[in-house]
């Protein structure tokens, strides 16, 4: 299927006069070079021809779009183009999410197929993020045609809103990588020349050769100083103009003066050049910063991925007719159709259909969950296998997804108090170092003027407080990213430091320890003329009207009878008419004429027909599967554990017994809870509150720090310092240990930095450290600090 003048294998143009061919399934195909021929034959002979089949699958631009793809043509409109593409003259650029893309062969297929469409200028596919970037002339072909072509290839395209895709940290990372590349290439080259120069110093070198090597070093070192080291100069200048000199000031002075002196020596045949020290210094500084930045960004990566998996269009159902609209136009109570494979555009409740939903992005659970009518769906999760219809409950900023993003944004901007202190101290240290360097310069100027510059340079380089400045942020950044791997979202920069001091863990309400989803534990049918299935179906049909958490226990996939005039009776139950009979479901007193049968309890629900009982349901909320193990682990690590709940004594006692919690308080009002926490704190305990805090925010705020389990859509209202995105409890134990480890590493790092600087300074002042050794020493000390912090990544 290859176009005759391009290579069958690599799709590059064939050179003129090239007559190489390879026989694929009996057909000779042109290839561009013996290499491609060899690979193509290898693939053929290994029986991997499906590789090409996947690549060359249906050619787009041929034939009419299939009926279900016709709806993509809506996107040919100019308002859609404006919403989803960046336009520059006659060229449009759009980022499209292609669902159903699994491997790099897919990216090949998309690139080659779309690339063949007339008007498409370039296609870049990123198989990791499942996104592609298309540039095309929009007067020749519409966005809708491109989307239709993608959908014809078997992918589920989803255009992403323009501007969504450029993230400042990605640009930052790219720039840093370029600088690092320049610095490392420059350093390698300069070092190579420096070896020649040093050898020359010892064994003699002809003047021309020395000059040549110096000149070449100058050319290579210049971009290192002016490009790779520019952030240091910029930051030093910012520090100076804000009257808060940072650690980049001595760094900049060292780089700038060593470079200037070397340039001077190069053109005046001076005694020595320090291009190698400069390049090395810049390289190691850049490397240290780069590693620290990577650690910082790793925790952001995920939230970026989250926001970008939200689709930008949705299929709205208006009076039975389907219509594709941008997600921004969805409002509460809209009906939306979600096809298998699509991601869910807003928070909502399933109104028809049932499907497996992949909620990994929100909860980290790899296993898809079966979701049926009445279940909540969170925006950003993916509908895997069947078409469902949902009623929108929250859009845009109201979704759980955007709450996560908002919270991680908040964490990024609240710096731990600890880091701020370190910054302030660094400022004083920098001033002190500059004073010392000046004193050293003056002393040596009178003592031995020839060596004054070199020694001052060494002092500046070797005492660079980089290790000191990196010690804390590197550790915190790594801990944050490790926590996000554990599905714990830190929303307050101070949380880690507080967690490391924690002594007492207080579980607020039983729901924290239970899975939070009510289930029917036992069902007893009380009349012979009904069977279990009928009871379940009738109960489910009645409970459809209710929004009470217990109602969710009755969800079923059975076919439901039709209920007329369903009515919710607050705190009692639901009534409704089925086939002319009046049914009630709820508490014994509500359903039964003779309510003395059973003591009132929220966990027993009766289904009754005209005042007589038909079935009895025992509803229970199961413990989280790892609750027992987690509590054991917490206790074995020496943490005290309490349960402070607003539930009745029976429920609390049962859970406390199952988990052997000694300190369990029941029937607590928020004021009681707060009082208990305060009394613990008065005894010198550092209290971590674990609870969702939705109705008792002051309680969470009263504790030293708080962790909230995420209950899907309720996440938006949470205000805890740490949020558990997953369902498991055990990451709490890991988080407590990790926090302690983080503070340990911070202390180690600070100690190391102080010891290093205290040792190196006198040696440098005494003139015993040449500049290149100073550069190695300084970078070694910062690398130690960063690598030490990176160990936290492996903390389990």
């Amino acid at each position, binding site marked *: 299927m290859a176009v005759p003048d391009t290579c069958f294998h690599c799709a590059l143009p064939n050179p003129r006069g090239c007559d190489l061919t390879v026989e694929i399934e009996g057909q000779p195909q042109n290839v561009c070079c013996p290499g491609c021929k060899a690979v193509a034959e290898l693939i053929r002979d290994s029986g991997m021809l499906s590789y090409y089949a996947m690549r060359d699958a249906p050619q787009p631009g041929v034939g009419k779009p299939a009926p279900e793809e016709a709806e993509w043509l809506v996107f040919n409109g100019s308002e859609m183009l404006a919403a989803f593409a960046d336009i520059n003259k006659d060229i449009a650029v759009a980022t499209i999410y292609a669902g159903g893309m699994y491997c790099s062969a897919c990216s090949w297929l998309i690139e080659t197929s779309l690339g063949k469409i007339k008007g498409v200028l370039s296609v870049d596919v990123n198989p990791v993020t499942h996104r592609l970037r298309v540039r095309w002339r929009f007067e020749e072909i519409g966005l809708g045609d491109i989307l239709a072509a993608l959908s014809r290839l078997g992918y589920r395209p989803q255009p992403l809103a323009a501007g969504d895709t450029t993230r400042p940290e990605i640009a930052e990372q790219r720039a840093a990588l370029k600088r690092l590349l320049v610095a490392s290439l420059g350093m390698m080259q300069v070092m190579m020349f420096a070896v020649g120069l040093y050898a020359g110093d010892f064994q*003699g070198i002809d003047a021309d050769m020395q000059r040549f090597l110096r000149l070449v070093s100058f050319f290579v070192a210049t971009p290192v100083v002016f490009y790779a080291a520019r952030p240091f100069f910029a930051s030093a200048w910012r520090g100076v103009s804000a009257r808060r000199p940072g650690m980049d000031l001595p760094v900049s002075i060292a780089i700038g003066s060593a470079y200037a002196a070397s340039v001077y020596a190069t053109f005046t045949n001076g005694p020595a050049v320090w291009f190698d020290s400069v390049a090395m210094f810049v390289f190691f500084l850049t490397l240290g910063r780069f590693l620290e930045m990577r650690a910082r960004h790793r925790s952001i990566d995920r939230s970026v991925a989250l926001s970008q998996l939200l689709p930008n269009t949705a299929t709205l159902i208006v009076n039975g007719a389907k219509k594709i609209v941008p997600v921004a136009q969805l409002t509460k109570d809209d009906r939306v159709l979600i096809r298998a494979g699509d991601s869910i555009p807003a928070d909502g409740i399933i109104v028809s259909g049932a499907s497996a939903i992949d909620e990994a992005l929100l909860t980290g659970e790899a296993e898809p969950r079966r979701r049926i009518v009445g279940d909540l769906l969170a925006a950003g999760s993916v509908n895997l296998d069947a078409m469902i219809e949902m009623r929108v409950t929250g859009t845009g900023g109201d979704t759980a997804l955007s709450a996560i993003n908002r919270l991680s944004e908040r964490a990024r901007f609240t710096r731990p108090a600890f880091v701020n202190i370190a910054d302030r101290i660094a400022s004083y240290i920098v001033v002190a170092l500059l004073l010392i360097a000046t004193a050293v310069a003056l002393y040596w100027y009178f003592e031995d003027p020839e060596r004054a510059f070199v020694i001052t340079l060494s002092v500046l380089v070797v005492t660079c407080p980089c290790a000191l400045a990196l010690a804390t942020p590197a550790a915190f950044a790594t801990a944050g990213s490790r926590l996000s791997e554990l599905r714990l979202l830190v929303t307050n920069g101070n949380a880690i430091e507080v967690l490391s001091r924690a002594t007492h863990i207080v579980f607020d309400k039983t729901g924290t320890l239970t899975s939070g989803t009510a289930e029917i534990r036992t069902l007893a049918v009380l009349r012979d003329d009904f069977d279990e299935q009928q009871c379940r179906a009738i109960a489910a049909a009645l409970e459809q009207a209710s929004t009470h958490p217990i109602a969710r226990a009755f969800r079923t996939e059975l076919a439901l009878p039709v209920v007329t005039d369903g009515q919710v009776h607050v705190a009692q139950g639901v009534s409704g008419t089925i086939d002319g009979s009046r049914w009630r479901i709820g508490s014994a007193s509500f359903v039964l004429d003779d309510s003395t049968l059973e003591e009132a309890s929220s966990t027993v629900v009766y289904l009754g027909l005209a005042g007589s009982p038909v079935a009895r349901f025992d509803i229970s909320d199961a413990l989280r599967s790892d609750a027992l193990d987690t509590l054991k682990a917490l206790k074995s690590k020496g943490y005290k554990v309490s349960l402070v709940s607003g539930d009745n004594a029976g429920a609390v006692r049962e859970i406390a017994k199952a988990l052997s919690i000694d300190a369990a308080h029941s029937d607590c009002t928020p004021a009681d809870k707060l009082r208990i926490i305060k009394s613990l704190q008065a005894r010198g305990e550092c209290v971590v509150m674990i609870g969702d805090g939705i109705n008792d925010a002051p309680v969470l705020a009263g504790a030293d720090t708080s962790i909230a389990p995420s209950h899907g859509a309720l996440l938006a209202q949470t205000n805890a310092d740490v949020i558990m995105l997953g369902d498991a409890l055990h990451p709490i134990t890991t988080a407590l240990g990790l926090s302690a480890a983080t503070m340990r590493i911070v202390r180690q790092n600070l100690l190391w930095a102080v010891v290093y600087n205290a040792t190196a300074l006198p040696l440098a002042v005494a003139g015993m450290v040449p500049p290149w050794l100073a550069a190695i020493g300084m970078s070694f000390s910062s690398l130690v600090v960063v690598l030490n912090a990176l160990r936290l990544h492996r903390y389990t």
Partner: protein
Amino acid sequence: MTEFGPVLAAAFATGLLGSTHCLGMCAGLSGLFAAGATVASIKTQFPLAVAYNVGRVLSYAFLGGVVALFGSTAIAAVPDLAAPVRIASGALIIVIGLQVAFGWRLLSSVEKIGAAIWNRLAPHARGLIPANSMPKALGLGLLWGWLPCGLVYSALLLAATTADAFGGGLVMIAFGLGTMPAMIVSGLSASKLSAFMSRNRLGAGILIVVLGIATLAMPLIKMSGGAQTNGHGQHSAAL
């Protein structure tokens, strides 16, 4: 070392910047490593990709050593050839640079000879696909190093001019390391990379040409400088 410096750098740059073509040829082939592997298994694919690439570079190093051995025999046979050969390697780097910049294929005839060698190796490669274990990936890499490729042959010529089996191997390792980033990430973001490469092909070529000039300049200066001060032998001894 100073004389090797630019040659090694040029070999590395050739590998790094010249791999546009390799990308077209070999990108997406990472699918062959583990047929049907999903994106989620990048963690398992990465070690395989590294093993495969290590194999490839080892083959290059071997080839480099062999051709350099031939080179040294030839140079030893003709006295006073050392400096002109250095100059030749400088010139060669410049040609490679031009080749990269303008997409020339000067060595396509040599590729045909290489294809003949490859035909003998290909049957062994078949058994290694899909390369879903470390030994298989390494083996496939070892064989892949023999794939007919003009860029590799350019680098081999360069290796030959070092006239030292060790140096030749070193040049080819530098070249192989240069191709690594492209080959390792090819499965991950081939498209971006190849787009970037082809956009910057001219710049890449010019960079290689500059390195060639540096290589060329050093022996030239030394020849002129050495004539005046007779410091040539001394300097070499220093290294």
